[in-house]
């Protein structure tokens, strides 16, 4: 249900731009062994693209189902698949990747989960789209595009290939 009033950016173009920006980020911040971690499912698609393009040896996938803060309202997602992270994330520079940033609650849950695996040296946040409406003090280090939507509207990423944005 795409809203014709909103011009949505091309997700594939944004992804290419993010690849360049992440490369620059790694160089400028001098991250020695950066670890990409994508949040299921959209963030994981983006993380896989970035890993390939940047030829990084490892990739982490995070499923935050067990860390959500709305269990009492929504219960558990039947899609909960579990996370796949490398054996140790101790002292790693993590680049956390998600598709759409809104309230910030997903990122809060993701960071809590990451700390149950170990103590990273740092975490940077990279998102394809930021639609504002933040409820927590969380911000991106890199973002593909910022959008303002009518209240009640959300952006969704479908994929993994091609990546496509839609509003519903």
């Amino acid at each position, binding site marked *: 249900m795409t809203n014709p009033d909103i011009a949505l950016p091309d997700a594939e173009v944004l992804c290419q731009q993010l690849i360049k920006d992440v490369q620059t980020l790694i160089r400028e911040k001098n991250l020695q062994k950066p670890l990409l971690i994508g949040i299921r499912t959209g963030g994981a698609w983006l993380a896989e693209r970035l890993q390939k393009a940047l030829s990084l040896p490892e990739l982490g996938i995070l*499923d935050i189902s*067990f*860390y959500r803060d709305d*269990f*009492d*309202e*929504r*219960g*558990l997602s*039947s899609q*909960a*698949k*579990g*996370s*796949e992270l490398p054996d140790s994330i101790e002292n790693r520079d993590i680049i956390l990747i998600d598709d759409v940033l809104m309230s910030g609650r997903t990122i809060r849950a993701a960071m*809590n*989960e990451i700390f*149950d*695996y*170990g103590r990273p040296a740092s975490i940077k946040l990279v998102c394809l789209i930021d639609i504002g409406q933040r409820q927590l003090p969380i911000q991106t280090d890199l973002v593909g595009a910022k959008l303002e939507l009518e209240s009640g509207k959300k952006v969704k990423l479908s994929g993994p290939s091609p990546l496509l944005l839609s509003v519903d």
Partner: protein
Amino acid sequence: MTRHSDPTQVQLTADGRLKHFLTTEGLSKALLTEILDLADSFISTQERAVKKVPLLRGKTVVNLFFENSTRTRSTFELAAKRLSADILNLDIARSATSKGETLMDTLWNLEAMYSDMFVVRHADSGAAHFIAEQVTPGVAIINAGDGRHAHPTQAMLDMLTIRRHKGSIEGKTVAIVGDILHSRVARSQIHALKTLGAKEIRVIGPATLVPKEMTDLGASIHYDMTRGLKDADVVIMLRLQKERMSDALLPSESEYFKLYGLTEEKLKLAKDDAIVMHPGPINRGVEIDSAVADGEQSVILNQVSYGIAVRMAVMAMAMSGQASEQAKQKAGDNA
């Protein structure tokens, strides 16, 4: 204890999600698979440095064991703790009920302590179902074994063991050996195996311990190991309860071992890559030879590990079903 309704229905929400876990009977393949998938995820969270996830943080789980069981109770306790719930262990066999308090009085007192879930083991068939019908909405009941009726979490951890070691349950030949008559585990296993698509389910044991009704559940009956074990993919040994000797259902332990004890030699009748399972505690030299229990084909200790993951999965799903039903109720009240 009288049953008032169909246990399959009592354990599901209006939209078909699990809200209690009482029996594997009548649950869909999709739902049983969901339990196994979720349990797989919980195996991986337990391999981390921090084994807990915050899913049931702030919830109170009560282990209500009217019958003793060290293994089942401790794996439920670990499962609750690894979901971040608080857990209270009550050894009811030695407490209030022995002073004359009724089952429901015990339960209402525990409810008054703001409990969110009861894990119930009871010697009467239907006890967990009875409690699920009486309990306040929002409180989940997990059956940890009721009489001869069901032991659904044991059955599901066995399904997970088969799936992880044999790839799937579909198309597999499974032999269940021993005291089928008194076994709630066997009943729950047969229901789950059937739903998940096992090719053949065989029950093997002496005629005194293998009821004919097993054929109604979809199992074939064998009185000798040679035919029963032939080409099996999975051999599940059941514990022989020693009190059965005094009931005159069996001649002697050594006689039983000779006929139905699993030895390396008998195991050769099954497929070369067959796995050997046992719900524990094992009686070495009665139903299983030590060489087999400790052998390469044995996955008995894996079963214990998977037991925690399966219990985490059903606890999370039942609490989730209760939460969503309560949220709907609240939304309906406000509308």
